[in-house]
């Protein structure tokens, strides 16, 4: 229900076919038992399809399909959601976009080239554990230390934090928010894998107990990253929203099929008015979710003033109603819907994991009020 236009159609179709062949749900289940959750060759092939280059300028080796890179990427993310596909899609693209926009020549030549080729994954280390888990909180500190900086603090959860070769870290410097790109093998960096709900993705806790990094690891000038981090947050959410819409679409379509084919008291479930009305609500939630998510991606590409409005309205809405849609799908399935053998939970896990990630629905609603209050003052 994300509408592809022109060249995007072929692009989306290619991604869809690739995912159907490479990571059918049986394969996703197999991969769930592995340490990383995806295979390097899978990711490299995906990169060749264009998954990692869409937000990177052509002069940095990237290129979009349609000139609207975020919308292009949203189409990929939608397919990822629809197939519960593994792979460090959001983190890699966030890091690639950051390097494409603000990276040094060295960062573009090395790390970015690796990301574009699919030879390495990226991770965005931004979220911090409670009580520093508010939107806009930033407690990890960067202090001058010789020629470089010393980082103190914790980032958690970081998606693909242990799989990524390059980690984009946001930190608080005395001059303001500051970003660093550090290699995952930076001396002193502790990367601890976490247990997680989502069987297809991996999260880690990154502990910086005086990790020293040279100035060449800076992404942008010290203290200048406030607006950039805000943009990256909007970017991460807009990709996440598309992915959520894909997962919701799978669950909805699967449950509609079930309702037509499952009989109770001699009638298909789809003939019971109470269930029909819940399907009507679910359809409304799904359409509204897809509408605002597509709009948020488009607003990112236009880089409009209302960009954050669209993104946060989207995260509020999809984050509020998406899980209810999923849980209604479970309820309609009955007991079988909460068994391990049924595929529904692969998508439920993904949606539920997305809800608090990159800001809860409530935090995004409060952010909207902040935006309004600022505009209104």
């Amino acid at each position, binding site marked *: *229900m994300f*509408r592809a236009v022109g060249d995007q159609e072929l692009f989306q179709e290619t991604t869809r076919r690739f995912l159907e062949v490479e990571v059918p749900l049986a394969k996703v289940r197999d991969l769930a038992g592995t340490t990383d959750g995806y295979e390097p060759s899978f990711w490299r092939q995906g990169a060749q399809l264009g998954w990692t280059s869409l937000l990177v300028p052509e002069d940095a080796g990237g290129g979009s399909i349609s000139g609207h890179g975020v919308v292009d990427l949203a189409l990929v993310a939608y397919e990822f959601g629809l197939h519960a596909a593994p792979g460090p899609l959001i983190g890699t693209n966030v890091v690639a976009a950051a390097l494409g926009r603000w990276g040094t020549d060295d960062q573009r030549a090395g790390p970015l080239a690796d990301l574009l080729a699919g030879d390495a994954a990226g991770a965005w280390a931004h979220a911090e554990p409670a009580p520093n888990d508010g939107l806009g909180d930033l407690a990890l500190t960067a202090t001058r230390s010789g020629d470089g900086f010393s980082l103190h603090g914790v980032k958690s959860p970081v998606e693909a934090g242990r799989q990524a070769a390059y980690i984009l870290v946001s930190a608080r410097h005395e001059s303001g928010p500051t970003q660093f790109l550090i290699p995952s093998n930076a001396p002193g960096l502790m990367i601890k894998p976490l247990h997680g709900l989502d069987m297809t993705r991996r999260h880690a806790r990154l502990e910086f107990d005086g990790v020293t990094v040279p100035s060449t690891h800076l992404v942008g000038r010290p203290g200048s990253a406030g607006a950039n981090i805000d943009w990256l947050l909007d970017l991460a959410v807009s990709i996440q929203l598309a992915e959520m819409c894909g997962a919701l679409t799978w669950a909805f379509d699967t449950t*509609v099929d079930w*309702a*037509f084919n499952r009989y109770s008291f001699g*009638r*298909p479930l*789809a*003939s019971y*008015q109470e269930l*029909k*009305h819940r*399907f*009507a*609500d679910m*359809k*409304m939630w799904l*359409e*509204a979710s*897809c*509408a*605002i998510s*597509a*709009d948020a991606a488009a607003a990112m590409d236009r880089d409009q003033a209302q960009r954050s*409005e*669209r993104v*946060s*309205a*989207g995260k*509020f*809405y999809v984050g509020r109603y998406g899980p209810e849609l999923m849980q209604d799908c479970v309820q309609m399935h009955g007991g079988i819907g909460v068994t391990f053998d049924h595929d529904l939970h692969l998508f439920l896990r993904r949606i539920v994991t997305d809800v608090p990630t990159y800001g809860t629905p*409530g935090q*995004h*609603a*409060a*952010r*909207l*009020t*902040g935006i*309004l*209050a600022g505009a*209104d003052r």
Partner: protein
Amino acid sequence: MSDTTDVEDVESFAARARAWLAANMPRPPDESRRDPSDDSDEEELRRVARSRRLQRLLYDGGFAGICVPSAYGGQGLTLAHQLAFNEEIADYDYPTETQLPTFTPCLPVILEFGTEDQKNTHIPPMLRGETAWMQLLSEPSGGSDVAAALTTAARDGDEWVLNGSKIWTTGAWWADWGLCLARTNWDVPKHRGLSVFMLDMHQPGIEIHRIEMLNGSREFCQEFLTDVRVPESLRVGAVDGGWTVGVRWMLHERTVLGQSPYVTGEPVRRRLGQGPGGGVAPLLQRARDLGLLTDPKASELIGEVFAMSVVGSTLGSHIAEGIRTGRLAEDAGAITRLYVGTSAVRNASIAFELAGLSAIAWSDSEAELGKRGIDYLMRQAACIGGGTTEMSRNVISERVLGMPRERAFDRDVPFRDVPRSAPQR
């Protein structure tokens, strides 16, 4: 409607409209922001008169009936032109009181089902702002079951004699004409015994009663028809074929929330989220006054109202596009209707909660907060008026998702024998 090569392209049309509007159209009066439920009858009549003048202005400027064939006084253009015009006119005054239901659903119903004579007679005066129409559709006994009309039209020579009662009509007390669905045959199943008539509202036998709502609004009316005589020439569509007309009638009615080719003015999508509750601005002001802008609960609730309006603003065009590309059934406008109703309910609840005790008891200076209480009492109106959300959910599940239809006890049974509600007190 006409060969595309003949048609002025949308951009030059829009430019022409822009220039004409700047030269001719007044800006909206400030009072247009007032709550219509506050209006006195005098004020309402004044607004109706202004609407008629503005409509005439559009007509004289060549911008009335943009999608109506020129044979009947319109411009013979396309929906794209109408939408472009709506964008241009958004910041100007434009006819409101006489737009709905005159231009939709009444006008397209006559366009589709009227005889050549009926179209020539009735459409041009609509476009000139001379006749305001109303729809005599719902009945007190019927609720959502519009086809269960009890109002009866009996043939008497060249005339029909109508008896019965219609309800929930807007502006019936100042309207000129009405489109009326009536039963012409009780011995066939309900859908097959209806006919549609055009009714001159200024004739004898029509008694109009203003309904008072719990918030004091008197916008709705109930009409009592007693031996109202209608000439055969005012019948629309076939005898007993009224449901064919009615189905299209109600589809046109639903496009009000989508994009109607016949309605001029601010696209409805901009108004989404501004239902009961008064929108987000007063909530923001209230929170600022009380120092609650960063309160975790208040800021989430205010943000929720804003988010629902932003999402609503994208939903309408998303659904319209889905219908256009064939991804969604034509009835998918019911999704938008459901969204508008349910989000209005939520917004009214949030506004009530944020208004605090002043929403239940207020001084003169707190009247704005008191309105949040009254809006909350009226909350469900957003899920009732214009077709209930229950009906929307039926439509979505049955016609959009294709699920089995509800069992009806009134199919294939003469309407005379269908069980119905006891008469009203």
